[in-house]
């Protein structure tokens, strides 16, 4: 219960940051929806962790919480890699705009 509360607090902080980024137009609509869905699903998974354990057991996985945390860790790594890709893509775009401005002077 305590661990669930801590995880939910972290997710709430991430979602608050997301809304801040949207407010300051640092991210687009699609990106906002993508991350909001991601964190909301994460929060739901934590809230219904016992149910999730039962589901995992029923499909043949071990029901222990530590396994679930490992799955979460892998998902988080995917998240960070994907976020880096998006950031890189934005940097590339800015670089091209700058190159174009210099070229057209």
């Amino acid at each position, binding site marked *: 219960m305590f661990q669930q509360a801590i995880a939910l607090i972290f997710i709430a902080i991430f979602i608050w940051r997301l809304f801040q980024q949207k407010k300051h137009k640092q991210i687009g609509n699609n990106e906002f929806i993508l991350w909001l869905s991601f964190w909301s699903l994460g929060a739901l998974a934590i809230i219904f962790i016992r149910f999730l354990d039962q589901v995992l057991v029923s499909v043949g996985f071990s029901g222990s919480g530590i396994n679930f945390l490992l799955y979460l860790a892998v998902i988080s790594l995917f998240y960070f890699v994907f976020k880096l890709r998006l950031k890189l893509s934005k940097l590339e775009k800015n670089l*091209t705009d700058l*190159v174009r401005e210099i*070229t057209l002077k």
Partner: protein
Amino acid sequence: MKIICVIPAWNEAKHIVRVIDKVKPLVNDVIVVDDHSTDNTSELAKNAGAFVLRHPINRGQGASLQTGSDQALKMGADIIVHFDADDQFAATEIPEVIAPLLKQEADVVFGSRFLGKKSNLPFSKKYLILPLGRLINHLLGAHTSDPQSGFRAYTKEVAHSFRIENNEMAHCSEILIKLSQGKWRIKEVPITVTYHEYGQKFSGGLRILKDLFIQKIRQ
């Protein structure tokens, strides 16, 4: 009507003079965007009579096309033609590609390798890569017969209406998809392509898919 041809070029010293010589008599101006070549593409293009822009670092074909199109608009273009520097397109077909624009029957014209004229397309490209590309474009809202044609022309109004954001090869699909979603009248014209080398491989197609996905998320 002022017609300007934009030719993106990267290390095209071997072909660029021949291409400019063929294109120049058919248009009012030729803009070559040298994407930071390591050979003497810029000098050769300048000597052949093209207006030459050079990117200070390499940014890709899509980026070069947008730079060239911006310059064309600055020079007062009414019609912008995109043409490749590798001598694979037939310059003699430029009048056919721009004809629907001059007759005001279309706002955008895409050259197509699949409308009758014979191109020496490699087998895997014709029966695997391009049909897959067509399917993906179709799912994304572009319904043209050629999913990756680099030979196209459009009016200045169209040029003002959109920006090419994909620096690499995904720009072909990006242009098709963006213009298909707009209010523009689109026409396809048969073109001939002579392949000197294979060009884009299957791995390139996967990269295009990834770039389109990243761009969609970034929007």
